Structures are given as C-alpha cells and as structure tokens.
C-alpha cells in the first residue's frame, strides 16, 4: 500500500519530467498534453469506473474530462499539482453525471449502463466465467461497505485505497484540509474494520 508521502500514478513518473510536460502543455503545446493523456488516461478511467460501474459511461466521461482539462490547462498555476487538478476535474464531471442521471430518472425509467455483474448464458461455461464471478463478488462486497459510509467518508476511502492517492493529494483534489481528510478516513476505516466478510473474501481471492 502506498505510503502517505509517495506519489502514485498510472506509470513510473519522474516529477521533474511531469512538471516540464505540464508547463509545455500550459503554454499550448498539444504534443505535451497528449503525453499527459498517455500517462493519466488509465488512472482517470479507473477513477470514473469506480464511481459509475459502467464501461460505456466511464469511457465517455474520460473523454470529456481530458477535453475539459485541455481547455483549461492554461489556467493551471501550480504545475506540481497537475494530478490533483486533473482528478478534481474528474470528480466534478462524475458528480455532474450522477446529478443529471438522477434528474432524468424523474421523467423516465432508468437507463443504467451499469455493467452486468454476472456472466451471461453464453460465457457461463467458459474459463473466464469464474473470473467474472469473482469480479462481480468483489464489486458486490465493496458496494455493501461503501453504502454504509457517508458521502465524504466514501470519497476519501475510494481516493485513498482504490485510486491510491496520498493524503496530501486527496486534500488538494477535494480542496479540504488534511486534518479533515484524515478525520473522514478514520471513520471510514473504523467501519471497514468491522466488515469481516469482505476481508475474508479479499484474503481468499488475493492472498
């Protein structure tokens, strides 16, 4: 598990190289921004997928997020906070997505694109079906725990242990103080510690 002071990204990143790329992109260098996309697109996609559980929606939102980042990169002041800045855009975009989805749900039946949890009849007998079942079980178990957390507790828990941001990055992304982040994280962990079923499941599938 990453320590609080380590910076985690989708690929091995040299901080100085990253800062240099961000500065070039900020100055209008399209190729530099494309390199930033290559480095962060998987991490952003995963972040969105954890919060939507839909492959289709996650891809569309990831595209939107990078377009928005490209349009606003000239305004970034602290180039060493690009990751937090990008994730902040991503979180806002996901919130907009859920807000619009709830609003549309008032007028018509839900048009969920959530990925099916269990394999269909055609893939049931294939070897990868077990993999599907385990993945489905994981999402079900983690969903049970996340539903017991408050909004803020859930967000810091996902950012810390699924997106693997450190405390400082979470604080910058959510624009909250580190002590606030730690308080919510403490409460989330206290609830998680009581969930023995998930912990047993994780130990069985991923020893």
């Amino acid at each position, binding site marked *: 598990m990453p320590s609080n002071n380590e910076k985690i990204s989708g690929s091995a990143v040299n901080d100085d190289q990253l800062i240099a790329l961000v500065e070039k992109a900020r100055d209008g260098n*399209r190729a530099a921004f494309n390199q930033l996309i290559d480095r962060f697109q998987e991490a952003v996609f995963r972040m969105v997928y954890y919060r939507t559980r839909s492959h289709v929606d996650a891809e569309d939102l990831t595209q939107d997020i*990078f377009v928005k980042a*490209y349009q606003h990169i000239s305004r970034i002041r602290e180039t060493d906070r690009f990751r937090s800045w990008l994730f902040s855009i991503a979180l806002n975009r996901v919130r907009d997505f859920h807000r619009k989805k709830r609003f549309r749900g008032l007028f018509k039946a839900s048009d969920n694109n959530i990925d099916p949890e269990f394999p269909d009849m055609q893939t049931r007998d294939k070897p990868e079906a077990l993999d599907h079942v385990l993945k489905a079980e994981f999402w079900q178990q983690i969903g049970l725990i996340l539903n017991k957390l408050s909004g803020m507790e859930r967000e810091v828990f996902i950012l810390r242990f699924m997106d693997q941001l450190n405390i400082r990055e979470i604080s910058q992304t959510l624009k909250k103080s580190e002590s606030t982040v730690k308080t919510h994280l403490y409460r989330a962990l206290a609830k998680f510690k009581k969930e023995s079923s998930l912990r047993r499941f994780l130990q069985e599938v991923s020893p």
Partner: protein
Amino acid sequence: MSSVNKQHLDEDQLLRAVIDIKDLAAPLQGHLAGCKQCLDQKARFEADLGRIGKMAQQATPQLSKRIILPARESKKPVWAWRGWQGALAAAAVTAVLVLAIWVPIQMRSPLPGDSANLAREMQEAEQLMAEVDMLVENALPPVYNNISGETAPQLDDDFIQFLIPSIEDDPQASVPEMKGLA
C-alpha cells in the same frame, strides 16, 4: 520500560497509525517500532486495504477508446471570409425555404379581401342582369305602366275587347260619312 511502551496499540491508535504514523504520539511510535505484535497487526490491516486497490484495478475493464482532443479553434478574425460567407449562405437558404413554403400557400388559398371583392362584383352583375331582364319584359318606365294597365294583370284581352272593340266587330263602323257635317 514505560507502561505506554508495554501496552499494545488499541484499535483507535492502530487506525491512526495506518492513516498517518506521525499522528501518533511519540511514545506510541516508539512502541510500534519495536513491537512485533503491533507491527503484524498493522501490516495485516494494511494488506487488506492494499488488496482492495489491487482487486479494484483487476476488476476494471480496459479503456478501449483513444482520447481525442478537439481540433484547435481557428484564430481568424470575426470578419474572415469563412464567417460572412457562411452567414450569407445561411441567409440564402433561409430565403429559399421561406419562399418555397410561403408561395404555394398563397396560391392555394386567396386572401380574405379578394373573396369580398369577388362577391360584390358577382352581386352587381346579378343585379344588372335582373334589370336587363326587366327591360326585356317591359321597356316602359314604371310611371307609364300604370296608364298602360300593365300593372293590372286582371285586365285581360276580353275585357279590353269589351271596352275598345275592334273595327271588325263594331256594327256602326260601316257609315261612310258623318251626318251633320257639310
């Protein structure tokens, strides 16, 4: 060795150590550094949390679409030829559409004003024809109709014959000269 160092971390302290070890009081940090039991307990808990991240990553599908940035916006001035030519083309298309829709509508249904004029003209024509028919029947002005008796339809030919017999029927009509006249 102090009592704090002998006492293992409780659940609250363990959670704080997992979140940020520097948030623990210094003595507790010292204990943790030297206590295998506490270190193992902390490591097991951190391992469970680490598995969440690892499993979440494995259970996430791959990004299949390439991120495409929008084309760079043109920095041409507003009055660039593309701008006003586009506006002109849009105006021309709009005018053609309006004509294509408006003209057939006008041809199918006449204006309400035209219908009123037409009705008036037809009425005048009918009135004129009626007057012509009346003149054909009787060209005398109405004043003379009273004298002619045309206005009294009960005066038929027999009655007129009684009043003014014709020369052939009058018995005294053969006297050639009038007596007393010399």
